[in-house]
């Protein structure tokens, strides 16, 4: 089965702008806000949201990056994925932290991120923003801000590509089972 374009570059841009507005509205401004992008693609998304907020609100929200490799519990299921990079977080103690990731699926990455964040300090609140929610949660975790809900089967391959990390920009959904999607 050939991949279906679930989001175009314009769709992604609009979703990011809407999430930015929702975050500001929900938190009644940008006071004490901190964005933490989850590596890899959560980082550029967090930066874009911060940039959008700087545009319409005139406020700078600090952006950090978080690598949860050392906190995962499902590495062996993902094969020998071993790349980890240093996390780089601003002060998060007492702050309203918004975690940002590209795809919310089982919730295990978010669970790992929550553990990691708490190791760095005690945030006042942690919220979650994702570009795609594809369902199939294995943990009691939900997103506060969602770009797009995409119903999928667990066998589907959801592929997010962003300019900053991949040089291209789209969200594909393909019935997987080894089917390689041309980038």
């Amino acid at each position, binding site marked *: 089965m050939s991949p279906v374009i679930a989001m175009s570059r314009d769709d992604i841009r609009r979703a990011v702008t809407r999430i930015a507005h929702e975050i500001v509205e929900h938190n009644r401004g940008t006071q004490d806000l901190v964005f933490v992008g989850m590596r*890899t693609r959560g980082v550029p998304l967090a930066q874009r949201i911060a940039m959008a907020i700087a545009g319409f609100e005139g406020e700078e929200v600090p952006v950090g990056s978080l*690598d949860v*490799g*050392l*906190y995962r*519990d*499902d*590495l*062996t*299921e*993902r*094969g*020998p*994925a*071993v*790349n*980890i*990079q*240093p*996390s*780089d977080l601003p002060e998060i103690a007492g702050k309203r932290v918004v975690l940002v990731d590209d795809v919310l699926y089982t919730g295990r990455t978010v669970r790992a991120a929550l*553990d*990691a964040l708490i*190791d*760095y300090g005690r945030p006042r609140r942690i919220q979650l923003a994702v570009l795609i929610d594809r369902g199939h949660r294995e943990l009691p975790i939900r997103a506060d801000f969602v770009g797009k809900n995409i119903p999928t089967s667990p066998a589907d391959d959801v592929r997010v590509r962003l300019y900053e*990390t991949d040089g291209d920009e789209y969200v594909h959904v393909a019935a997987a089972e080894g089917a390689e999607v041309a980038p």
Partner: protein
Amino acid sequence: MTTIRTPEPRPAEPAAPAIAPSPDETAWRRRHLLDLDDFGAEEIELLMTTTDAMKEVLAREVPRVPALRGSTIITLFYENSTRTRSSFELAGKVLGADVINVAASSSSVTKGESLVDTVKTLQAIGADVIIMRHGRSGAPYLAARHAVCSIVNAGDGLHAHPTQALLDLYTMRARLGDVRGRKVVIVGDVLHSRVARSDMWLLTSLGAEVVVCAPPTLIPQGLAGAGEGQLPPVRVETDLDVAVRDADVVMALRMQNERMTGGFVPGVREYSRLYQVNAGRLARAKPAAFVMHPGPMNEGIEISHEVAHGLQSQVEEQVANGVAVRMAVLWLITRVGGRSRT
């Protein structure tokens, strides 16, 4: 969670990955770390970036992550060691593993238990990783052949000391960026140094210009004019004043006391007069050059006190980087063929 378990047999190396890695993830297929002589540039790069991440963990207020929670690491040392053993122990603990130290001198080894039996016993207890130092070159290879757990070589005879070479490389890169084209002078008892052997392999494979300097009696036979097969392509220079000229890095090796009396050098005083890394000699190197030493140092013999603790010394950084490098090694080798951790 402390359940006693029998180690599951793991697939023979190289373990085929269950899932093909996506393009942005580098594959790592090594279950053991025995030597660096067959490492590719990509694997070295992965080790270095993983070490960066481990440095960040060590810089935290509470340096502790759950990456290896539930894993058991056993250090099995047949030779004395302070920094290597404690550095591995700390690395394991920071990653959340349980670490048990076994000194061969106080174990059943003294009752005549063979190396293979000891390794099998330790993995029956539940060892996921055995970190091993042994006086015989190649001993970790023997252990790895019989082990279902991972084996890390923490120094074997005159053969290799891979984690020391990796931390040396990491320390150099922190200062130099890249070692390609840089001049590294290794001075001292190269003949009896597994550190020097591992450093020579690793640094030359990355394009560094390695110059080895020692009295002819302390240079491995055939090393001059080497470059094919068994020996790394280094240059040999017996005059330290000539060797250090324009060097980027000067690495002094420990002059072991027993070599002094073994007829390799005429005497301590003559050795230090000709081969000590001191301020005068360091002045001939590049202005930004720095000094390294794998420790423990004999200050006043192979390195002068002022240089050992001077501004150009990276000795303490080496020790600090050692923990991060060993964390990276433990993390990477336990990604392969391991059981699922929940």
